[in-house]
Protein backbone atom coordinates (compact mmCIF):
# COMPACT_ATOMS: atom_id res chain seq x y z
CA UNK A 1 0.00 0.00 0.00
CA UNK A 2 1.47 3.34 -1.00
CA UNK A 3 2.02 6.10 1.52
CA UNK A 4 -0.52 8.23 -0.30
CA UNK A 5 -3.39 5.79 -0.03
CA UNK A 6 -2.49 5.13 3.58
CA UNK A 7 -2.82 8.86 4.21
CA UNK A 8 -6.16 8.94 2.42
CA UNK A 9 -7.50 5.93 4.31
CA UNK A 10 -6.45 7.27 7.69
CA UNK A 11 -8.02 10.64 6.92
CA UNK A 12 -11.23 8.88 5.90
CA UNK A 13 -11.21 6.86 9.10
CA UNK A 14 -10.52 9.95 11.18
CA UNK A 15 -13.22 11.91 9.36
CA UNK A 16 -15.89 9.28 9.88
CA UNK A 17 -14.88 8.79 13.51
CA UNK A 18 -15.10 12.56 13.97
CA UNK A 19 -18.60 12.54 12.50
CA UNK A 20 -19.95 9.53 14.36
CA UNK A 21 -18.21 9.15 17.74
CA UNK A 22 -20.05 12.07 19.37
CA UNK A 23 -23.38 10.62 18.24
CA UNK A 24 -22.48 7.14 19.51
CA UNK A 25 -21.55 8.58 22.88
CA UNK A 26 -24.86 10.40 23.15
CA UNK A 27 -26.67 7.12 22.44
CA UNK A 28 -24.52 5.33 25.01
CA UNK A 29 -25.05 7.95 27.71
CA UNK A 30 -28.80 7.99 27.15
CA UNK A 31 -28.83 4.60 28.91
CA UNK A 32 -26.86 5.99 31.82
CA UNK A 33 -28.62 5.63 35.16
CA UNK A 34 -26.71 8.50 36.77
CA UNK A 35 -28.38 11.91 36.71
CA UNK A 36 -24.98 13.53 36.37
CA UNK A 37 -24.78 13.14 32.65
CA UNK A 38 -21.02 12.61 32.33
CA UNK A 39 -20.55 9.94 34.99
CA UNK A 40 -21.50 6.35 34.21
CA UNK A 41 -23.89 4.96 36.83
CA UNK A 42 -25.06 1.71 35.28
CA UNK A 43 -27.53 0.78 32.55
CA UNK A 44 -31.04 2.16 32.72
CA UNK A 45 -33.90 3.24 30.51
CA UNK A 46 -35.35 5.62 33.10
CA UNK A 47 -34.71 8.75 30.99
CA UNK A 48 -36.91 7.38 28.23
CA UNK A 49 -39.68 6.93 30.77
CA UNK A 50 -39.25 10.48 32.03
CA UNK A 51 -39.32 11.74 28.47
CA UNK A 52 -42.77 10.29 27.94
CA UNK A 53 -44.09 11.99 31.07
CA UNK A 54 -42.74 15.42 30.20
CA UNK A 55 -45.75 17.30 28.80
CA UNK A 56 -43.63 20.24 27.70
CA UNK A 57 -41.52 18.00 25.47
CA UNK A 58 -44.56 16.19 24.10
CA UNK A 59 -46.38 19.44 23.28
CA UNK A 60 -43.27 20.87 21.64
CA UNK A 61 -42.75 17.66 19.66
CA UNK A 62 -46.37 17.68 18.52
CA UNK A 63 -46.14 21.29 17.32
CA UNK A 64 -42.86 20.52 15.53
CA UNK A 65 -44.37 17.48 13.81
CA UNK A 66 -47.44 19.42 12.70
CA UNK A 67 -45.29 22.22 11.30
CA UNK A 68 -42.94 19.74 9.65
CA UNK A 69 -45.68 17.75 7.90
CA UNK A 70 -47.56 20.85 6.72
CA UNK A 71 -44.51 22.80 5.57
CA UNK A 72 -42.92 19.76 3.88
CA UNK A 73 -46.12 19.12 1.93
CA UNK A 74 -46.48 22.76 0.87
CA UNK A 75 -42.77 22.95 0.03
CA UNK A 76 -42.98 19.81 -2.11
CA UNK A 77 -45.94 21.26 -4.01
CA UNK A 78 -44.35 24.66 -4.69
CA UNK A 79 -40.84 23.26 -5.05
CA UNK A 80 -41.92 20.72 -7.67
CA UNK A 81 -43.65 23.43 -9.69
CA UNK A 82 -40.55 25.61 -9.42
CA UNK A 83 -38.26 22.73 -10.41
CA UNK A 84 -40.47 21.92 -13.41
CA UNK A 85 -40.46 25.56 -14.46
CA UNK A 86 -36.68 25.82 -14.20
CA UNK A 87 -35.94 22.57 -16.02
CA UNK A 88 -38.65 22.39 -18.65
CA UNK A 89 -40.11 25.82 -19.37
CA UNK A 90 -37.05 27.14 -21.21
CA UNK A 91 -36.46 30.86 -21.02
CA UNK A 92 -39.16 32.97 -19.46
CA UNK A 93 -39.38 36.51 -18.20
CA UNK A 94 -37.79 36.97 -14.80
CA UNK A 95 -35.98 33.64 -14.89
CA UNK A 96 -32.77 35.04 -13.40
CA UNK A 97 -34.63 36.54 -10.44
CA UNK A 98 -36.58 33.32 -10.02
CA UNK A 99 -33.55 31.02 -9.95
CA UNK A 100 -31.79 33.52 -7.68
CA UNK A 101 -34.70 33.41 -5.25
CA UNK A 102 -34.66 29.60 -5.40
CA UNK A 103 -30.99 29.21 -4.54
CA UNK A 104 -30.57 32.09 -2.06
CA UNK A 105 -32.67 30.86 0.87
CA UNK A 106 -30.40 27.83 1.16
CA UNK A 107 -27.27 29.83 1.88
CA UNK A 108 -28.81 32.82 3.63
CA UNK A 109 -27.65 32.96 7.27
CA UNK A 110 -30.56 31.89 9.45
CA UNK A 111 -30.47 35.01 11.59
CA UNK A 112 -31.14 37.14 8.50
CA UNK A 113 -33.97 34.90 7.20
CA UNK A 114 -35.54 34.79 10.65
CA UNK A 115 -35.32 38.52 11.27
CA UNK A 116 -36.59 39.43 7.79
CA UNK A 117 -39.60 37.10 8.04
CA UNK A 118 -40.52 38.32 11.51
CA UNK A 119 -40.38 41.93 10.34
CA UNK A 120 -42.58 40.96 7.38
CA UNK A 121 -45.15 39.36 9.69
CA UNK A 122 -45.12 42.38 12.01
CA UNK A 123 -45.60 44.74 9.05
CA UNK A 124 -48.39 42.58 7.61
CA UNK A 125 -50.13 42.56 10.94
CA UNK A 126 -49.87 46.32 11.19
CA UNK A 127 -51.62 46.77 7.86
CA UNK A 128 -53.92 43.77 7.50
CA UNK A 129 -54.40 42.43 11.00
CA UNK A 130 -52.98 39.07 9.92
CA UNK A 131 -51.24 37.14 11.50
CA UNK A 132 -52.98 38.01 14.77
CA UNK A 133 -50.88 35.54 16.67
CA UNK A 134 -47.52 34.17 15.66
CA UNK A 135 -47.12 30.43 16.00
CA UNK A 136 -48.03 27.44 13.89
CA UNK A 137 -48.95 29.41 10.76
CA UNK A 138 -45.97 31.77 10.76
CA UNK A 139 -43.45 28.99 11.48
CA UNK A 140 -45.01 26.87 8.74
CA UNK A 141 -44.76 29.71 6.21
CA UNK A 142 -41.12 30.33 7.14
CA UNK A 143 -40.22 26.66 6.83
CA UNK A 144 -42.08 26.29 3.54
CA UNK A 145 -40.09 29.18 2.12
CA UNK A 146 -36.65 27.74 2.74
CA UNK A 147 -37.63 24.10 2.16
CA UNK A 148 -39.20 24.68 -1.26
CA UNK A 149 -35.81 25.84 -2.49
CA UNK A 150 -34.31 22.46 -1.66
CA UNK A 151 -37.20 20.59 -3.28
CA UNK A 152 -36.91 22.75 -6.41
CA UNK A 153 -33.20 22.02 -6.76
CA UNK A 154 -33.65 18.27 -6.23
CA UNK A 155 -36.54 18.07 -8.74
CA UNK A 156 -34.68 20.25 -11.22
CA UNK A 157 -31.53 18.11 -11.05
CA UNK A 158 -33.56 14.96 -11.51
CA UNK A 159 -35.31 16.45 -14.56
CA UNK A 160 -32.04 17.69 -16.05
CA UNK A 161 -30.43 14.30 -15.48
CA UNK A 162 -33.35 12.59 -17.13
CA UNK A 163 -33.75 11.82 -20.76
CA UNK A 164 -36.48 13.92 -22.30
CA UNK A 165 -37.16 11.28 -24.93
CA UNK A 166 -39.99 9.69 -22.92
CA UNK A 167 -41.81 12.98 -22.67
CA UNK A 168 -41.09 13.72 -26.32
CA UNK A 169 -42.33 10.29 -27.38
CA UNK A 170 -45.54 10.77 -25.41
CA UNK A 171 -46.06 14.07 -27.14
CA UNK A 172 -45.24 12.68 -30.57
CA UNK A 173 -47.91 10.10 -29.94
CA UNK A 174 -50.39 12.92 -29.46
CA UNK A 175 -50.29 13.40 -25.69
CA UNK A 176 -51.20 16.90 -24.62
CA UNK A 177 -48.47 18.69 -22.65
CA UNK A 178 -50.58 18.80 -19.49
CA UNK A 179 -51.30 15.08 -19.66
CA UNK A 180 -47.66 14.35 -20.37
CA UNK A 181 -46.74 16.22 -17.19
CA UNK A 182 -49.13 14.19 -15.06
CA UNK A 183 -48.75 10.81 -16.81
CA UNK A 184 -45.05 10.80 -17.61
CA UNK A 185 -43.09 13.54 -15.88
CA UNK A 186 -44.59 13.38 -12.39
CA UNK A 187 -44.23 9.60 -12.01
CA UNK A 188 -40.61 9.90 -13.18
CA UNK A 189 -39.77 12.61 -10.67
CA UNK A 190 -41.77 11.02 -7.85
CA UNK A 191 -38.62 9.72 -6.10
CA UNK A 192 -37.15 13.22 -6.18
CA UNK A 193 -40.38 14.55 -4.70
CA UNK A 194 -40.29 11.95 -1.94
CA UNK A 195 -36.65 12.80 -1.21
CA UNK A 196 -37.53 16.50 -1.25
CA UNK A 197 -40.44 15.97 1.14
CA UNK A 198 -38.26 14.00 3.56
CA UNK A 199 -35.53 16.62 3.41
CA UNK A 200 -38.04 19.43 4.02
CA UNK A 201 -39.52 17.46 6.89
CA UNK A 202 -36.15 17.06 8.64
CA UNK A 203 -35.06 20.63 7.87
CA UNK A 204 -38.25 21.83 9.51
CA UNK A 205 -37.77 19.59 12.55
CA UNK A 206 -34.19 20.83 12.76
CA UNK A 207 -34.73 24.56 12.64
CA UNK A 208 -34.14 26.57 15.78
CA UNK A 209 -33.10 30.07 14.80
CA UNK A 210 -35.81 30.92 12.26
CA UNK A 211 -38.55 29.42 14.44
CA UNK A 212 -37.28 31.44 17.43
CA UNK A 213 -37.77 34.61 15.42
CA UNK A 214 -41.17 33.93 13.90
CA UNK A 215 -42.93 32.12 16.75
CA UNK A 216 -44.89 33.94 19.38
CA UNK A 217 -45.42 33.40 23.10
CA UNK A 218 -46.85 29.98 23.83
CA UNK A 219 -45.59 28.29 20.66
CA UNK A 220 -42.45 26.38 21.48
CA UNK A 221 -41.09 23.95 18.91
CA UNK A 222 -38.99 20.97 19.92
CA UNK A 223 -35.63 22.57 19.01
CA UNK A 224 -36.62 25.70 20.94
CA UNK A 225 -37.36 23.55 23.98
CA UNK A 226 -34.12 21.60 23.60
CA UNK A 227 -32.12 24.81 23.21
CA UNK A 228 -33.62 26.34 26.35
CA UNK A 229 -32.56 23.20 28.18
CA UNK A 230 -29.06 22.60 26.81
CA UNK A 231 -28.14 26.25 27.37
CA UNK A 232 -27.83 25.17 30.99
CA UNK A 233 -25.61 22.19 30.21
CA UNK A 234 -25.73 18.48 29.43
CA UNK A 235 -28.91 16.76 30.56
CA UNK A 236 -29.73 13.03 30.50
CA UNK A 237 -33.29 13.27 29.18
CA UNK A 238 -32.00 15.25 26.19
CA UNK A 239 -29.60 12.36 25.57
CA UNK A 240 -32.59 10.02 25.42
CA UNK A 241 -34.46 12.37 23.12
CA UNK A 242 -31.39 12.70 20.87
CA UNK A 243 -31.12 8.91 20.68
CA UNK A 244 -34.75 8.60 19.57
CA UNK A 245 -34.16 11.24 16.89
CA UNK A 246 -30.91 9.64 15.71
CA UNK A 247 -32.62 6.26 15.35
CA UNK A 248 -35.65 7.73 13.58
CA UNK A 249 -33.56 9.79 11.16
CA UNK A 250 -31.15 6.95 10.37
CA UNK A 251 -34.09 4.69 9.55
CA UNK A 252 -35.70 7.38 7.41
CA UNK A 253 -32.51 8.17 5.50
CA UNK A 254 -31.79 4.50 4.91
CA UNK A 255 -35.31 4.05 3.51
CA UNK A 256 -35.00 7.13 1.29
CA UNK A 257 -31.67 5.86 0.03
CA UNK A 258 -33.13 2.48 -0.85
CA UNK A 259 -36.03 4.14 -2.70
CA UNK A 260 -33.68 6.40 -4.65
CA UNK A 261 -31.37 3.51 -5.47
CA UNK A 262 -34.15 1.28 -6.68
CA UNK A 263 -35.57 4.04 -8.85
CA UNK A 264 -32.13 4.80 -10.30
CA UNK A 265 -31.91 1.27 -11.69
CA UNK A 266 -33.13 0.84 -15.22
Amino acid at each position, binding site marked *: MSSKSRF*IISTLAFGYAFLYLPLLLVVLYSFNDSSIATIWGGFSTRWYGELLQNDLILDAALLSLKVAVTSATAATLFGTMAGLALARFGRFKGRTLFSGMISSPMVM*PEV*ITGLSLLLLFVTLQQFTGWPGQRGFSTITIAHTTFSMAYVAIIVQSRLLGMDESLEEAAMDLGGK*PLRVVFDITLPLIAPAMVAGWLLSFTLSLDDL*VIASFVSGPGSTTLPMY*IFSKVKLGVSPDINALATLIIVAVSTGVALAWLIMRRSARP
Partner: protein
Amino acid sequence: MVILAAAQRRDSDGLMATTHNSKDELWRRFALAAPYLWLLVFFLAPFAIILKISLADPVIAQPPFTPTFDATGHLSITADNFRFLLTDKLYAITYLRSVLMAAMATVLCLSLGFPMAYGIARTQPATRGLLLLLIVLPFWISFLLRVYAWMGLMNNYGVINNFLMWAGLIEQPIQMMYTDFAVFIGLVYTYLPFMVLPLYATLERMDLDLVEAAQDLGASRTRAFWDITWPLARPGVIAGCLLVFIPAMGEYVIPYLLGGPESLLIGRVLFDEFFVNRDWPLASAVAIVLLLLLVVPIVLLQRYQASDQDSSA
Protein backbone atom coordinates in the same frame (compact mmCIF):
# COMPACT_ATOMS: atom_id res chain seq x y z
CA MET B 1 -27.14 17.46 -1.06
CA VAL B 2 -27.75 20.09 -3.65
CA ILE B 3 -24.31 19.36 -4.84
CA LEU B 4 -24.83 15.65 -4.58
CA ALA B 5 -27.43 16.08 -7.25
CA ALA B 6 -25.07 18.29 -9.23
CA ALA B 7 -22.97 15.18 -9.82
CA GLN B 8 -25.68 13.76 -12.00
CA ARG B 9 -26.74 16.89 -13.79
CA ARG B 10 -26.78 16.81 -17.54
CA ASP B 11 -26.86 19.54 -20.03
CA SER B 12 -30.33 20.29 -21.23
CA ASP B 13 -31.81 23.09 -23.21
CA GLY B 14 -35.01 22.49 -21.31
CA LEU B 15 -37.30 23.24 -24.19
CA MET B 16 -40.46 21.30 -24.67
CA ALA B 17 -42.56 21.06 -27.75
CA THR B 18 -44.20 24.37 -28.39
CA THR B 19 -47.72 23.28 -29.19
CA HIS B 20 -49.97 24.31 -26.36
CA ASN B 21 -53.67 24.69 -26.05
CA SER B 22 -55.07 27.18 -23.59
CA LYS B 23 -55.45 24.68 -20.75
CA ASP B 24 -51.78 23.78 -20.98
CA GLU B 25 -50.82 27.41 -21.11
CA LEU B 26 -52.90 28.01 -18.00
CA TRP B 27 -51.14 25.18 -16.17
CA ARG B 28 -47.72 26.49 -17.15
CA ARG B 29 -48.60 29.94 -15.92
CA PHE B 30 -49.92 28.56 -12.66
CA ALA B 31 -46.92 26.26 -12.09
CA LEU B 32 -44.63 29.26 -12.48
CA ALA B 33 -46.73 31.93 -10.78
CA ALA B 34 -47.47 30.05 -7.54
CA PRO B 35 -43.87 29.53 -6.39
CA TYR B 36 -42.83 32.85 -7.92
CA LEU B 37 -45.40 34.84 -5.94
CA TRP B 38 -44.66 32.91 -2.77
CA LEU B 39 -40.96 33.75 -3.00
CA LEU B 40 -41.62 37.39 -3.87
CA VAL B 41 -43.81 37.82 -0.80
CA PHE B 42 -41.96 35.67 1.71
CA PHE B 43 -38.38 35.95 0.53
CA LEU B 44 -37.79 39.18 -1.39
CA ALA B 45 -40.26 41.58 0.22
CA PRO B 46 -38.86 40.98 3.74
CA PHE B 47 -35.51 42.39 2.63
CA ALA B 48 -37.16 45.65 1.60
CA ILE B 49 -38.73 45.77 5.06
CA ILE B 50 -35.39 45.15 6.81
CA LEU B 51 -33.88 47.98 4.79
CA LYS B 52 -36.78 50.28 5.65
CA ILE B 53 -36.53 49.54 9.38
CA SER B 54 -32.74 49.90 9.41
CA LEU B 55 -33.30 53.52 8.35
CA ALA B 56 -35.66 54.24 11.26
CA ASP B 57 -35.07 55.41 14.83
CA PRO B 58 -35.82 53.11 17.74
CA VAL B 59 -38.71 54.25 19.94
CA ILE B 60 -40.51 52.67 22.85
CA ALA B 61 -43.72 51.75 21.09
CA GLN B 62 -45.34 48.85 19.29
CA PRO B 63 -43.68 48.26 16.84
CA PRO B 64 -40.51 49.78 18.33
CA PHE B 65 -39.34 52.00 15.46
CA THR B 66 -40.35 55.29 13.87
CA PRO B 67 -42.46 55.19 10.70
CA THR B 68 -40.77 55.90 7.37
CA PHE B 69 -43.16 58.80 6.74
CA ASP B 70 -43.92 61.16 9.62
CA ALA B 71 -47.36 62.55 10.49
CA THR B 72 -47.08 65.27 7.86
CA GLY B 73 -46.25 62.73 5.17
CA HIS B 74 -42.60 63.70 4.88
CA LEU B 75 -39.93 61.08 4.43
CA SER B 76 -38.22 60.56 7.76
CA ILE B 77 -35.20 58.32 7.53
CA THR B 78 -31.85 58.29 9.25
CA ALA B 79 -28.46 56.75 8.68
CA ASP B 80 -27.69 56.86 12.40
CA ASN B 81 -27.75 53.08 12.81
CA PHE B 82 -25.19 52.54 10.08
CA ARG B 83 -23.07 55.43 11.35
CA PHE B 84 -23.15 53.84 14.79
CA LEU B 85 -22.14 50.42 13.40
CA LEU B 86 -19.21 51.92 11.53
CA THR B 87 -17.92 54.07 14.38
CA ASP B 88 -18.44 51.75 17.34
CA LYS B 89 -15.35 49.57 17.66
CA LEU B 90 -17.19 46.61 19.16
CA TYR B 91 -19.19 46.03 15.97
CA ALA B 92 -16.21 46.39 13.65
CA ILE B 93 -14.25 43.91 15.75
CA THR B 94 -17.17 41.48 15.86
CA TYR B 95 -17.63 41.58 12.08
CA LEU B 96 -13.90 41.03 11.63
CA ARG B 97 -13.88 38.16 14.14
CA SER B 98 -16.82 36.56 12.33
CA VAL B 99 -15.03 36.79 8.97
CA LEU B 100 -11.82 35.36 10.45
CA MET B 101 -13.52 32.53 12.33
CA ALA B 102 -15.62 31.58 9.32
CA ALA B 103 -12.53 31.68 7.08
CA MET B 104 -10.55 29.56 9.54
CA ALA B 105 -13.39 27.03 9.81
CA THR B 106 -13.50 26.91 5.99
CA VAL B 107 -9.77 26.15 5.78
CA LEU B 108 -10.11 23.42 8.43
CA CYS B 109 -13.08 21.88 6.60
CA LEU B 110 -11.12 21.93 3.35
CA SER B 111 -8.06 20.26 4.89
CA LEU B 112 -10.16 17.44 6.28
CA GLY B 113 -12.76 17.36 3.52
CA PHE B 114 -10.45 17.23 0.49
CA PRO B 115 -8.67 13.97 1.37
CA MET B 116 -12.01 12.48 2.41
CA ALA B 117 -13.74 13.44 -0.85
CA TYR B 118 -10.70 12.23 -2.80
CA GLY B 119 -10.73 8.93 -0.95
CA ILE B 120 -14.45 8.40 -1.52
CA ALA B 121 -14.16 9.21 -5.23
CA ARG B 122 -11.41 6.59 -5.60
CA THR B 123 -13.19 3.67 -3.90
CA GLN B 124 -15.22 1.05 -5.73
CA PRO B 125 -18.45 2.49 -7.15
CA ALA B 126 -20.43 0.04 -4.99
CA THR B 127 -19.03 1.36 -1.70
CA ARG B 128 -19.11 5.00 -2.83
CA GLY B 129 -22.86 5.29 -2.36
CA LEU B 130 -22.64 4.03 1.18
CA LEU B 131 -19.68 6.26 2.09
CA LEU B 132 -21.52 9.28 0.69
CA LEU B 133 -24.64 8.35 2.60
CA LEU B 134 -22.57 8.27 5.78
CA ILE B 135 -21.35 11.80 4.99
CA VAL B 136 -24.90 13.05 4.47
CA LEU B 137 -26.54 11.20 7.37
CA PRO B 138 -25.32 13.46 10.22
CA PHE B 139 -26.68 16.40 8.26
CA TRP B 140 -30.17 14.93 8.66
CA ILE B 141 -29.82 14.45 12.40
CA SER B 142 -30.77 17.50 14.42
CA PHE B 143 -28.05 20.10 14.10
CA LEU B 144 -28.72 21.31 17.62
CA LEU B 145 -28.29 17.83 19.05
CA ARG B 146 -25.05 17.31 17.16
CA VAL B 147 -23.63 20.49 18.66
CA TYR B 148 -24.99 19.36 22.00
CA ALA B 149 -23.13 16.05 21.67
CA TRP B 150 -19.86 17.98 21.81
CA MET B 151 -20.83 19.65 25.07
CA GLY B 152 -20.74 16.25 26.76
CA LEU B 153 -17.43 15.44 25.08
CA MET B 154 -15.55 18.64 25.78
CA ASN B 155 -16.75 19.37 29.29
CA ASN B 156 -14.13 19.70 32.02
CA TYR B 157 -15.52 16.42 33.32
CA GLY B 158 -16.59 15.23 29.90
CA VAL B 159 -15.59 12.13 27.99
CA ILE B 160 -12.35 13.50 26.49
CA ASN B 161 -10.96 14.90 29.75
CA ASN B 162 -12.02 11.83 31.70
CA PHE B 163 -10.29 9.61 29.18
CA LEU B 164 -7.07 11.65 29.15
CA MET B 165 -6.95 11.72 32.93
CA TRP B 166 -7.69 8.02 33.14
CA ALA B 167 -4.88 7.34 30.68
CA GLY B 168 -2.59 9.45 32.86
CA LEU B 169 -1.79 11.88 30.05
CA ILE B 170 -3.00 14.92 31.96
CA GLU B 171 -3.60 15.63 35.63
CA GLN B 172 -5.91 18.59 35.39
CA PRO B 173 -8.81 18.73 32.93
CA ILE B 174 -8.08 20.87 29.87
CA GLN B 175 -10.47 23.76 29.41
CA MET B 176 -12.05 23.09 26.01
CA MET B 177 -15.64 24.24 26.38
CA TYR B 178 -16.31 27.96 26.09
CA THR B 179 -13.20 28.60 24.00
CA ASP B 180 -12.59 29.41 20.34
CA PHE B 181 -11.26 25.87 19.95
CA ALA B 182 -14.70 24.50 20.82
CA VAL B 183 -16.33 26.86 18.34
CA PHE B 184 -14.02 25.63 15.57
CA ILE B 185 -14.79 22.01 16.43
CA GLY B 186 -18.50 22.80 16.28
CA LEU B 187 -18.20 24.65 12.97
CA VAL B 188 -16.07 21.96 11.28
CA TYR B 189 -18.30 19.22 12.61
CA THR B 190 -21.47 20.89 11.37
CA TYR B 191 -20.27 22.08 7.98
CA LEU B 192 -17.94 19.24 6.91
CA PRO B 193 -20.64 17.58 4.73
CA PHE B 194 -21.12 20.87 2.83
CA MET B 195 -17.44 20.72 1.90
CA VAL B 196 -17.15 17.02 1.08
CA LEU B 197 -20.16 16.79 -1.26
CA PRO B 198 -19.23 19.41 -3.90
CA LEU B 199 -15.59 18.26 -3.74
CA TYR B 200 -16.69 14.71 -4.34
CA ALA B 201 -18.87 15.82 -7.26
CA THR B 202 -15.90 17.34 -9.11
CA LEU B 203 -13.30 14.74 -8.10
CA GLU B 204 -15.56 11.91 -9.20
CA ARG B 205 -15.88 13.43 -12.67
CA MET B 206 -12.12 13.88 -12.99
CA ASP B 207 -10.24 11.79 -15.51
CA LEU B 208 -7.62 9.79 -13.60
CA ASP B 209 -5.66 9.13 -16.78
CA LEU B 210 -4.53 12.76 -16.72
CA VAL B 211 -2.70 12.27 -13.44
CA GLU B 212 -1.17 9.04 -14.71
CA ALA B 213 -0.08 10.71 -17.93
CA ALA B 214 1.59 13.51 -15.97
CA GLN B 215 3.43 10.98 -13.85
CA ASP B 216 4.45 8.95 -16.91
CA LEU B 217 5.91 12.14 -18.32
CA GLY B 218 8.05 12.47 -15.23
CA ALA B 219 6.04 14.68 -12.90
CA SER B 220 6.41 13.88 -9.22
CA ARG B 221 3.28 13.00 -7.26
CA THR B 222 3.22 16.39 -5.58
CA ARG B 223 3.71 18.13 -8.91
CA ALA B 224 0.94 16.07 -10.52
CA PHE B 225 -1.38 16.98 -7.65
CA TRP B 226 -0.79 20.72 -7.86
CA ASP B 227 -0.67 20.85 -11.67
CA ILE B 228 -3.51 18.45 -12.51
CA THR B 229 -5.76 17.44 -9.61
CA TRP B 230 -6.00 20.78 -7.83
CA PRO B 231 -6.91 22.91 -10.88
CA LEU B 232 -9.49 20.33 -11.97
CA ALA B 233 -10.97 20.22 -8.49
CA ARG B 234 -11.17 24.00 -8.24
CA PRO B 235 -14.91 24.40 -8.96
CA GLY B 236 -15.64 21.95 -6.13
CA VAL B 237 -13.19 23.69 -3.82
CA ILE B 238 -14.80 27.06 -4.49
CA ALA B 239 -18.34 25.76 -4.05
CA GLY B 240 -17.44 23.86 -0.88
CA CYS B 241 -15.63 26.82 0.65
CA LEU B 242 -18.56 29.15 -0.07
CA LEU B 243 -21.10 26.66 1.28
CA VAL B 244 -19.14 26.54 4.54
CA PHE B 245 -18.12 30.19 4.78
CA ILE B 246 -21.50 31.81 4.14
CA PRO B 247 -23.59 30.06 6.81
CA ALA B 248 -20.66 30.02 9.27
CA MET B 249 -20.54 33.83 9.08
CA GLY B 250 -24.00 34.17 10.57
CA GLU B 251 -23.80 31.21 12.94
CA TYR B 252 -25.65 31.73 16.22
CA VAL B 253 -26.10 28.40 17.97
CA ILE B 254 -22.52 27.10 17.89
CA PRO B 255 -20.82 30.14 19.45
CA TYR B 256 -23.69 30.41 21.91
CA LEU B 257 -23.42 26.84 23.18
CA LEU B 258 -19.71 26.10 22.77
CA GLY B 259 -18.02 29.51 22.77
CA GLY B 260 -17.01 31.69 25.66
CA PRO B 261 -17.92 35.31 26.32
CA GLU B 262 -15.02 36.47 24.16
CA SER B 263 -16.09 34.44 21.12
CA LEU B 264 -18.79 36.94 20.23
CA LEU B 265 -19.91 36.52 16.63
CA ILE B 266 -22.15 38.77 14.59
CA GLY B 267 -25.09 36.35 14.52
CA ARG B 268 -25.25 36.48 18.30
CA VAL B 269 -24.99 40.27 18.30
CA LEU B 270 -27.92 40.50 15.86
CA PHE B 271 -29.98 38.12 17.97
CA ASP B 272 -29.27 39.98 21.21
CA GLU B 273 -29.75 43.42 19.66
CA PHE B 274 -33.20 42.27 18.62
CA PHE B 275 -34.40 40.16 21.53
CA VAL B 276 -32.47 41.54 24.50
CA ASN B 277 -32.08 45.24 23.66
CA ARG B 278 -35.22 45.33 21.52
CA ASP B 279 -33.43 47.72 19.17
CA TRP B 280 -35.08 46.62 15.91
CA PRO B 281 -33.55 49.32 13.70
CA LEU B 282 -30.02 48.53 14.85
CA ALA B 283 -30.60 44.76 14.48
CA SER B 284 -31.84 45.42 10.93
CA ALA B 285 -28.76 47.50 10.19
CA VAL B 286 -26.54 44.69 11.53
CA ALA B 287 -28.36 42.30 9.17
CA ILE B 288 -27.95 44.64 6.18
CA VAL B 289 -24.20 45.01 6.76
CA LEU B 290 -23.85 41.24 7.20
CA LEU B 291 -25.76 40.75 3.97
CA LEU B 292 -23.49 43.25 2.17
CA LEU B 293 -20.45 41.31 3.41
CA LEU B 294 -22.01 38.14 2.02
CA VAL B 295 -23.24 39.49 -1.32
CA VAL B 296 -19.99 38.73 -3.11
CA PRO B 297 -19.70 35.12 -1.86
CA ILE B 298 -23.40 34.47 -2.52
CA VAL B 299 -23.26 35.82 -6.08
CA LEU B 300 -20.07 33.82 -6.69
CA LEU B 301 -21.79 30.66 -5.47
CA GLN B 302 -24.81 31.23 -7.71
CA ARG B 303 -22.62 31.91 -10.71
CA TYR B 304 -20.66 28.73 -9.99
CA GLN B 305 -23.84 26.69 -9.68
CA ALA B 306 -25.27 28.12 -12.89
CA SER B 307 -22.09 27.42 -14.85
CA ASP B 308 -21.83 23.97 -13.33
CA GLN B 309 -25.27 23.25 -14.67
CA ASP B 310 -24.36 24.43 -18.15
CA SER B 311 -20.96 22.79 -18.41
CA SER B 312 -21.46 19.35 -16.91
CA ALA B 313 -22.12 16.90 -19.65
